[in-house]
């Protein structure tokens, strides 16, 4: 089984995409863990899929839709306890 090892650059790139700030030590730990996970998944490549057509889902469902109706009872009425200001806006640190 070929062992795929992710480079440090790849780990840093992935951590950025995942919005994680990792320490040097964590890059080391997560890097080797992620490589191991990838290698584990890679075992699937041993299965012969030449006669199987590709699919994006396995439920075999299709066209699951809702009618265009408002169901107010599903809306959240009270945002108390969440980070909202007096005007009911969520607030985050200014982004620009």
């Amino acid at each position, binding site marked *: 089984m070929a062992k795929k090892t992710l480079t440090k650059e790849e780990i840093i*790139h992935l951590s*950025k*995409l995942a*919005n994680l700030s990792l320490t040097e030590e964590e890059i080391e730990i997560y890097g080797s863990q992620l490589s191991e996970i990838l290698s584990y998944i890679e075992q699937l490549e041993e299965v012969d899929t030449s006669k199987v057509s590709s699919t*994006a*889902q396995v*439920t075999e*469902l*299709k*066209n*699951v*839709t*809702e*009618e*265009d*109706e*408002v*169901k*107010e009872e*599903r*809306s*959240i009425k009270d*945002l108390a306890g969440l980070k*909202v*200001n007096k*005007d*009911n*806006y*969520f*607030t*985050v*640190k*200014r*982004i*620009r």
Partner: protein
Amino acid sequence: MYKYQPVIGLEIHVELKTKSKMFCQDSADYFGKKPNTHVCPVCLGLPGALPVPNKKAIEWTILIGQALNCSINKVSKFDRKHYFYPDLPKGYQISQYDEPIASNGWLKFQISNFKFQIKEKKFRIHRVHLEEDTGKLIHSGSDTLVDFNRSGVPLVEIVTEPDFDNSDDVKRFLEELHTIIRYLGVSDADMEKGSMRLEPNISLRKISIQDSGFKIQELPNYKVEVKNINSFNFVKRAIEYEIKRQTEILEKGETPAQETRGFDSVKGITYSQRSKEEAHDYRYFPEPDIPPLEFTYKEIEDIKKKLPELPSDKEKRLIKEYRLKAQDAFILTRDLRIADYFEKVTDEFNKLMLVQDKASVDIEKQQSLGQTIANLIVNKRLSTSLDPEEFAKKAITSTVTYIADREKMDKAVSKVIDDFPKAVEDYKAGKTNSIMFLVGQVMKEMKGQVDANTVKKKLIKILK
């Protein structure tokens, strides 16, 4: 010798006016509502929430695709597009990646050039897909405020091929598209409220013309996108600014940076927005929570039957059926309400005329009845807020003279000529203004029940 030719493509976002959101049942009517009152676990992206697509939004996207002559894909699916930004609570937007609802369409319409020659032009549509709108951000002090009422409102993205080479065609295309969307009744397409947003992408292609006349075209190796413009004029100005800016860079032998820019409508310039640190890496993958969409031929055809007569078809029909001038047919068809109103008034007019003795009717001007009505509407001589029958009645009073009325008018004219010999003399002596005095007297004699222009013509004819 060489020159630069603009290569322009467009991305247009249109918010659908469904009652509920794209993947949940909160009200999609967010404009002016208290922040974060139309939110639920689905559009807030809370763990475990399950998105279910809105059937009407899917149908309307198919309808837009059909209006733009696209092929509707029998199989379609949703994908997750990942990026981090506070307007996106889930960390990804549900969109469509490689299987959009509609693709490969076109839109064509008449366009007049600077010499006012009319030409039909055709622009290709690359794809039409369905996604969800994001939340609204307000930057305030050290905070960014987020309102998720808009988050999850159905949003259709229309992408054209890079078929444009000038800003006038772009503006005309966008206006036509806007009119079509309004005809379909699937969106308010209100630019000011942001329910239609425009993003042109612009680059310049170098064309070298050799002595032999042979042209060598080089494809541009960069693309500049101008984001979120909310007016057709701003798009035109942004494109013109970019063409100038990019030409200057290219003439220095440099290549414009591949980037996203904003448009400053006050200064009339585009500016570099903080460029994303790296190339987009959205890591699209199929949305596992939403099973694929499959449409039968019959379903697609049934939706197609709902397509109304589109503006350019209506324009052609009005010209033919009512013998209208092209520019008036164009103006009338820009607003479906006005186009319908025009046809209703014309119909009412005809009905009213039927009850009159046809022989006694004399339309003053040498033009079609339709053109007469069109003039009244286009020149705003009568208000289109009138009931069509009311409009038709008024139209008749101002454009039609009946023989019975004419006899009365002839008598009044003779009487006024006899009663005011001084004014008649003045007119004959060249004081043409005195005709208006005589017209006034005739009007008075007839208690206003006559068209002043008709009286004036009659007087001039007699006194000549």
